[in-house]
């Protein structure tokens, strides 16, 4: 195996003193995580062109917590998200979501799990262009998923300011509106976890902030669990906790982050 070339040792280890220790004592007191990884590894390619994207990552997502995943480009943050969401197969290690080991699921069950228990928000919105906003919101129901609770749906659309936009197609909506539809879609079927990959990447700071506030509110008001990949310290500051990745490994944690603190950590990480 090519892993011989990569001893799975980050070139950059934790800096004693300058960052928090990897396992904070408080973690031991917390309830069991809603999702976690054990020794997660992901290798792309073979032989000479082999790239180690994730290296023995252990990470926990706590229920009702907003976790941000940060790191420089190529640090493996998107790969981590994809593996945790069952969109990509890890090369080694384990992903457990709500007590279910994703590696043991058939592709069909995995699809069911994604449809029923997970929600997704992407940088490029990924709304189906032929469907109206409302049809996008209720698509999982049509695909055999659980029925979307009408009261919840109406609460979401009201809270997201989408009531008069429900019968528009994505092309007829602004970027901010599209992303609000995408967030509402991710929340519509009350998933266990919402995975967001650079949700504000295509938005200006004001609309971006609105989307982040919606995600944060979901966590605060309904106990939604959210994991978000971002490279924006301001966005990360909306989270309860930031996990820093570098070269495929978790190198730091930051609880109750502020934009300044995150920026500081990043500066150190990027050396």
């Amino acid at each position, binding site marked *: 195996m090519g892993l011989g070339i990569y001893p799975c040792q980050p070139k950059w280890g934790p800096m004693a003193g300058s960052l928090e220790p990897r396992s904070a004592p408080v973690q031991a007191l917390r309830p069991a995580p809603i999702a976690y990884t054990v020794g997660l590894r992901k290798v792309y390619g073979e032989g000479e062109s082999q790239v180690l994207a994730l290296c023995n990552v252990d990470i926990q997502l706590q229920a009702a917590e907003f976790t941000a995943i940060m790191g420089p480009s190529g640090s493996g*943050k*998107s*790969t981590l*998200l*994809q593996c945790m969401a069952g*969109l*990509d197969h890890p090369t080694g290690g384990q992903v457990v979501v709500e007590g279910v080991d994703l590696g043991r699921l058939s592709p*069909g069950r995995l*699809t*069911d799990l*994604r*449809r*029923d228990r997970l929600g*997704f928000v*992407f*940088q*490029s*919105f*990924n*709304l*189906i*262009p*032929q*469907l109206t906003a409302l*049809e996008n919101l209720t*698509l*999982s129901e*049509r*695909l*055999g*998923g659980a029925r979307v609770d009408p009261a919840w749906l109406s609460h979401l659309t009201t809270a997201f300011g989408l009531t008069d936009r429900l019968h528009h*197609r*994505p*092309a007829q909506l602004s*970027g901010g509106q*599209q992303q609000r539809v995408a967030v509402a*879609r991710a929340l519509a079927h009350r998933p266990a976890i919402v995975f967001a*990959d*650079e949700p504000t990447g*295509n938005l200006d700071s004001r609309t971006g902030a609105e989307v982040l506030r919606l995600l944060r509110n979901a966590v605060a008001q309904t106990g939604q669990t959210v994991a978000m*990949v971002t490279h924006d310290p301001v966005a990360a500051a909306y989270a309860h906790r930031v996990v820093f990745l570098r070269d495929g490994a978790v190198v730091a944690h930051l609880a109750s982050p502020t934009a300044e603190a995150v920026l500081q950590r990043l500066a150190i990480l990027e050396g």
Partner: protein
Amino acid sequence: MVLMAWRSLRSRWVATLASLLAVVVGTALVVAALVVGASAEAGGAAQAQRQWRLDGADLVVRVGASLETSAGLAVALNERPRLSEAQLVAVAGVPGVGDLALDAGFSAFVVHNGTHVGNGAVRSWGHSWATAVADPVRLTSGAAPQGRDEVAVDEAVARAAGRSVGDRIDVLTATGVHQYRLSGIVARAGQESAYAVFFDNSTAAELGGAPTVGLVRLDPGASAADVTRRIRASVPGVEVLSGADKGATMLGPTETEALAGGMGQFIGTMSACALLITVFVIASTLSLSVAQRRRELAMLRAVGASPGRVRRLVLGEAALLGIVGGLLGALAGVALAAAGLRLFAGAGLMPEGLPLAGVPSGVLAGLAAAGLTTIVAGSLPAWRASQVAPSEALRAVYAPPRRLGAARTVLGVVSAAVGVLLLVTSAVLQSPVNTLKGAIATSLIFTAAPFLVLGASLLGPVTVGVLLRLAAPVLGRTAGGFLAARSIAADRRRAVGLATPLMLMVAVACVLLFQDWATFAGKSRNYEQRLAAELVVAGPHMLGVPSVVEQRVATVPHVAAASGTVSSWVYATSKGSAPPNVEALGVNPRTISEVLDLPTVSGSWKSFDNEAVAVSEATATERGWRPGVMIDYRLPDGVPAKATVAVVYRGDNTLAGMLVPRRVLLPHLRDQFDTAVYLRLRPGVEVAAARKTVSEKLADIPGAAVQNRSVHLDTMSQQSTGDNWIVYLFVAMLAGYAGIAAINALIGSSVGQAPLFAMARLAGAKTRHVLGWIGAEAGFAALSGVVQGTVIAAAVMISYGYLLTSELWLPFPGGQYLLICATALLVAAVGALAPARLAVSAQSRDLTQGR
């Protein structure tokens, strides 16, 4: 620019390959059609010369087979005119003419085991021995026929009949079957195309009537050129042939024409269809590719490419396809032509061993057609591409294409309206198909088809929208169907891209295939309406029964009335614009009104005798004839005749325009066989008993079948659905071609859909959902194509059926129609495999960035 076009094509190689294939097939069909046509034309004359060489004669004289109308137009006669006694005397008297031998071909079949030796394709003709000498044939055994009781035959005939010199041999002529002694067997170059039975000169003259051909041997020392000049000068109306042209004289005028041009015209029609489809295929492929590349094109515009440059880029692609496809197609076309000639020869539709002719001009025309077609087809997509706004490059979301252009809708409505107008005009014209007005009505109907097809393809998005609204409740029942319905509604062009080629395929296949069937079905309907006879004596297909049958059955006591019928054309000088040709039916004037039900408009059947004619209402109106009027007309070989109009009858659109006494008509025909003889029985006579008696009376006539009315009608309808397997072959090729377009459209469209499949997967769609989506979309598009094609074909065919029978009926043979529909759906299913493959492999993680 070329480099850009090339790179652009290379990046979408599957769609490109399909377009290229379309151009190759289109060009190949055009080149093949032109080369086969040219070969047939060049070969027709050669073939005519090969049947008979007549090298033993120095010159051949005959009368020109055309007639000059009062307007100065030459009209080709249906029969070769006969040489008059005066002309023969004059020719014989020309200085330098040594010997003048005569011949007139007449139907003469050797009979073996109660059947004809020869058939509708390889006819058998009686000739004078003088012709055998003039050819010259080689006697392989025996001697020349002497006296009334001897014949000599071709080797092929002797072999088929199993006879050798000295054997008794039965020969069927218009006068019945007579027994002869086989005096000799000859080897003759042309015996494979038509058989010959040689009689001694005076017997041949007796059986064949006045000669059509004079075979001249010159006096020793006389110059052929001088004698030719002298004959032309002193005997007006006579043509003199020498050299290789002489042999063609032995064939009837229509026969030579058929050999030369028939196939070429047929293939021409087919290649026009192929070209039409090529335009559609390339236009739809390029349109799709433009639709998919809007962003890329917008990016080009954003970085400074002018609209003209974008237009040239797309046109450049089209031109590149045209050049490469044209070259490959031209090569394939020549090969196809060679194969086609063999195929047609094998089917007996063309002479064997024709050499390829007109290759360079065919190839050039094919290349020109390919170039022109691709550029015409590329213009609309190119224009559309140049209209892409640079701002589209900046949009984050896939923007559904703009609404339909008003120009497209207007053009579509106009085109469809023209098609409908043509159909309505044909219905208004409503004339017998054998008249000029009827011929115009027929061509209007079939000209309407391309207009309707064009209209339907331009209005495709509108039609698909309407059909989608109808189908939405059904589609909405499943997740795949719902996604398909939404996806079609959002971008109808993709569904149109699949529906249009299938619409074309169904419409073209139905019209081409059913036309022949409809003609016969229509004729059968009319025939059934007017057939009053209780018994019919029919002969083998295309051969008929000898004219003596009518006299013989008339003497059977059960029979009240009998009339033979023989088809030909006569020529009536007319004052108006009507052409002189009138389709004529030779009948027995005293009995015809009893065996055929022909309602009288004016006049009386009682006054129809051998000095009179009966005319249809349409002919009477066209020429201003009414009962009692004396008319001048020409018989099929141009001989002038006079007759009184006895009666005007109400004919249908497939009946001859004029009934002429058989006794008047027959001597002017080469083939004096009746198509059929109709019998009306005396009251109270049992049909079965009469049938038995008549059959006994005709026991010696080979192939004569005495049928009651229903059996006869059955036989007639079966006869009609015969030899159009070549049309099948062509339709199959066109269908395959349209199939390529459909598959092309599906492949092209599915590439653009890949991200959508991934998004649906992310939302929880399983493989079956996505496959259901694709299946529903392809199925809907295919069905809407089939529906549109059916509606167009039905409109055209109903019009044609109405023209033939003046009744509204749908001339669709059910089995064939279902086969066409099944083929169309199969094409769609095969085409849907490509997007299905993509759908299965669509991964939702492809949507996330940062990998």
